């Protein structure tokens, strides 16, 4: 995590200051949009734990995001608000349990098969909610009341207020970032990176690789569930689309676009992805082409993939190394630096 060193930390702190000040600009639309982006950033960081650190390319991560939304919608009473204190942990527990069961199966496969089996589980979940009446079928379910957040009798935050919800999401995004950064710097985190680099050797050194991967998978599922919970709270509505493979693909693209294996990369990726989506579908600027925003989006992603193999975070690191000239450029953590092969 030391890549880029001082410059990078400064850039991240500045970005955080910008995000704290952002709602003061008073734009309802953009406050909502940024809230949505930060929720996606949590989602993308949870996937980065698998893709960027453990070497597990999951193409079914929307399963956790969507399952969390449905779990919340089904566990809250229809006409009164439930407490966040129990609905959030309960939702994340449901997702962790789902990850534990599916992980025990999918982690027995490797490479392309892992990609296909994660996709298959997400699709199964999609059809469970799409084709049965459990979650209102293809129409989905409304969540009429946002959860409340009280300590005793005093309301800490009113999630119906945009700014309050914005700051809750921002705080959780920072918390998830710090939590994962801490975790990845620990012996446990180093073992995950070792498994990503060379699982066979890790096993030969005595690491029970399967257990490590399962732990990462469960944690990733729980954090993916956190993002799905927040998204369901924000939109007040869930339908099967939130589990679709488009959603799994989008979050994977955010991770790759931003730079996997960096944590802040997926956050940047979430911003870049959603903002590009907004930009290219802006009729005022692109007129008739705005309808075909996916074309421009695809081109942008191809350009990043070709010219920035480490994603947008790689660009930041490069600038960081130049700005920090005088400091040794080698990354002692070894997660992003050094030759591969």
């Amino acid at each position, binding site marked *: 995590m030391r890549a880029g060193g001082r410059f990078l930390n400064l850039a991240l702190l500045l970005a955080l200051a910008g995000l704290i000040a952002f709602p003061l600009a008073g734009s309802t639309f953009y406050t909502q949009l940024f809230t949505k982006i930060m929720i996606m950033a949590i989602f993308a960081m949870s996937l980065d734990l698998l893709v960027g650190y453990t070497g597990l390319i999951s193409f079914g991560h929307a399963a956790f995001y969507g399952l969390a939304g449905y779990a919340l919608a089904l566990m809250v009473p229809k006409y009164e608000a439930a407490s966040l204190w129990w609905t959030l942990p309960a939702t994340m527990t449901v997702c962790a349990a789902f990850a534990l069961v599916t992980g025990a199966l999918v982690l027995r496969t490797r490479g392309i098969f892992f990609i296909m089996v994660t996709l298959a589980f997400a699709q199964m979940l999609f059809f469970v909610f799409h084709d049965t009446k459990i979650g209102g079928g293809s129409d989905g379910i409304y969540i009429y009341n946002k959860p409340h957040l009280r300590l005793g009798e005093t309301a800490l935050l009113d999630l119906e207020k945009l700014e309050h919800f914005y700051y809750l999401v921002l705080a959780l995004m920072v918390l998830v970032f710090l939590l994962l950064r801490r975790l990845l710097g*620990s012996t446990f985190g*180093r073992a995950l990176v070792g498994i990503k*680099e060379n699982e066979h050797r890790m*096993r*030969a*050194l005595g690491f029970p690789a399967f257990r490590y991967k399962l732990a990462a998978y469960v944690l990733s599922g729980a954090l993916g569930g956190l993002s799905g919970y927040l998204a369901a709270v924000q939109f007040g509505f869930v339908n099967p689309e939130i589990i679709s493979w488009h959603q799994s693909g989008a979050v994977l693209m955010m991770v790759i676009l931003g730079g996997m294996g960096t944590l802040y990369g997926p956050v940047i990726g979430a911003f870049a992805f959603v903002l590009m989506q907004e930009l290219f579908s802006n009729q005022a600027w692109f007129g008739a082409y705005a309808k075909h925003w996916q074309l421009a989006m695809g081109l942008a992603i191809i350009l990043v993939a070709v010219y920035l193999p480490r994603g947008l975070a790689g660009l930041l690191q490069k600038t960081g190394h130049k700005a920090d000239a005088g400091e040794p450029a*080698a990354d002692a*953590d070894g997660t992003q*630096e050094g*030759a591969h092969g």
Partner: protein
Amino acid sequence: MAERDSAAAVAAAPGGGAILSTVGLTRRFGGLLAVNDVSIDLRVGEVHAVIGPNGAGKTTLTNLLSGDLAPSAGEIRYGGGNLAGLPSHRISRMGIGRSYQKTNIFLPFTVFENCRLAAQSRAPHAWRVFHRAGSFADINRQAEEAMAAAGLAGRRERVAATLSHGEQRQLEIAMCLATRPRVLLLDEPLAGMGPHESASMVELIKKLTAGHAIMLIEHDMDAVFAVAQRLTVMVNGEVIESGAPEDVRNSPAVQLAYLGGEDSLHG
């Protein structure tokens, strides 16, 4: 920690006897008998070299002992139990370490981090998620000792990918040592090394002999005769001769198997 206990039990076993014995160890690949009815013993303080032409089944034998492959038949007796069929991480945790013929290290990591990761593998702190990986003094010391033993103390912060071939082979061994094994399975540690590097690797193996039971797979006959106390010759998956190196060297069966081949026992 049952594995820890059995490793300790093994360590306490009376000297002289074999710490690890294979009995009728066999591995089939379809119709091919890669390892056929092999019975060998490894003793602490002894280098047991296994030689033979390419395709003799030496690396397959190593893979069976390390758990990379499961045997089709036979036993691997160790610490009062049978290792046959156990997964590699369990075997490693019981005190059997191996190095690979093809260098198998973590290229993007520094030398120290490679060793630290290896040392961490059996530490009770391995699952602590909120302490920095480098903050455990016992793990760090174990890694430093392994680096020093393998002659890499001066390369601590070098990224493994930038090491010379010989140094990467040393790192391969250092990682193995960082797990504090009783049994060392060394698969061609001298492969691709220059004469100077080979000489220091031979010295390293001699140094390690005292505290370890070593199985050495090697093509370099000078090295083999310099370090081995026991020599087994394999051809086509079978043991054709086993015993003290000088006796084996002069065995008619071995002469016959090697004569006409490119390898020569006297080369």
